């Protein structure tokens, strides 16, 4: 199997790594870069829990080969905090009880952060549309949607 030297920026830091062709971006993030905030669940693009930002764009990392991100910039949940300070979406998730088991939370927070950057004042429908690719099996989404709408008002 072919091996490839790639360099990428993850959460502001540059990494030079060698990856095998069949490695996914999700495996690279969790196993090689040891950032385990991004979750691995269905590994077939259905649940969205592995969502990260690739050059700022929400992307399901289980469907991307690591070798494809050579020269690109990846942002994971670990990259959203500044020092000890949570971002507006993270604070709103806590305030609204939008976290239950927490397994889907990194994906929702990442996707919501990207949404608010692109569209600072989304409607409820905009939020539902943007979160459409991510599944939560605990909260029933109401608190998640409320948290994102609230975060958009507090920015």
């Amino acid at each position, binding site marked *: *199997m*072919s091996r*490839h030297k790639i360099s990428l920026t993850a959460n502001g830091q540059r990494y030079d790594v060698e990856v*095998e*062709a*069949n*490695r*996914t971006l999700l*495996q690279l993030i969790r196993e090689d870069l040891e950032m385990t905030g991004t979750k691995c669940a269905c*590994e*077939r*693009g*259905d649940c*969205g829990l592995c*969502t990260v930002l690739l050059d700022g*764009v*929400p*992307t*399901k990392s*289980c*469907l*991307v*080969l690591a*070798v*494809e991100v050579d020269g690109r910039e990846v942002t994971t949940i670990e990259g959203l905090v500044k020092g000890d300070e949570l971002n507006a979406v993270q604070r709103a998730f806590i305030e609204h009880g939008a976290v239950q088991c927490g397994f889907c939370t990194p994906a929702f927070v990442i*996707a919501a952060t990207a949404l608010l950057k692109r569209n600072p004042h989304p409607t409820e429908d905009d939020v539902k*549309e*943007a979160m*459409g*690719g*991510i*599944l939560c099996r605990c909260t029933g989404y109401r608190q998640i949607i409320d948290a994102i709408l609230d975060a958009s008002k507090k920015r």
Partner: protein
Amino acid sequence: MPLPKFDYIRPRTMRKLVSALAERKADAKIIAGGTDLVVLLRDKIVRPNYVIDVKGVRELHKLSWNKKLGLTIGAAVTLKELLDSDIVKQKFGVLWKAASTLADPTIRNRATLVGNICNASPAADTAPALLVLDAKVEVVGKGKRTVAIKDFFKGVKKTALKPGEFVRAVKVPNPPEGARGDYLEWGRTVGEDLSVVGVAALVADSGEKLVRVALSSVAPTPLLVPDIEGAFRDGGSLDEKIERAVSIVQSKICPISDVRCCKEYRLYMAGVLTSRVLKRLLGAADVKA
């Protein structure tokens, strides 16, 4: 779980892409967005020794429009890029609508239109829209050839591509002046499931001159319904004409029962959606006449 093993190749020019594929033919699979291929690799439904990435070739990222030639969608153009295009939204509304219903926004950030048709699922959401728009598929291999979209789908997950060939772009001619189109999809959920049935329609001149209807998920391939215009040639009210169109649609499709629903339900819903989309597109114009 790791994916099965393969070699990854990322050619930087069209010429290198053509020769990389020509050398390996059926031993290679093309990756663009990867949203279908990576799942197929994981499930070992395809087992290539080589995965060839088309995203390294700059010209394949081209999405362009021309007054005379219409729309050109390169193999690496994502559905998100298509949806962000004002030209696509204004002039190719049926395609825009179909692209907007495919999977979910995160998948659409990565998935490509060309990948959607090359995967050749009977449920491919963009296929009915391309069928009513009479799109052309630009195939490159040893030479170049153009395949009409209605001849491109050959069976479940089967296309007209021969080993060593790939799709460079899909070309969509400008629809006739005043044409209106829409795509309606019926499914169990939004985003997380394939459709039960999808219906695209394109009409022009109040429906007397041009009516095209194409469906997904009701036959081994996405299907352009032949002779639908016959329903509008004879007299009667608009409702009667649309009823005749529904009968033609239901006589030409052959849905199956599967995990999503039974064939009878698909047949019924194909009729409901056909009637709904045609009423939506023809209603106002015929009321006037």
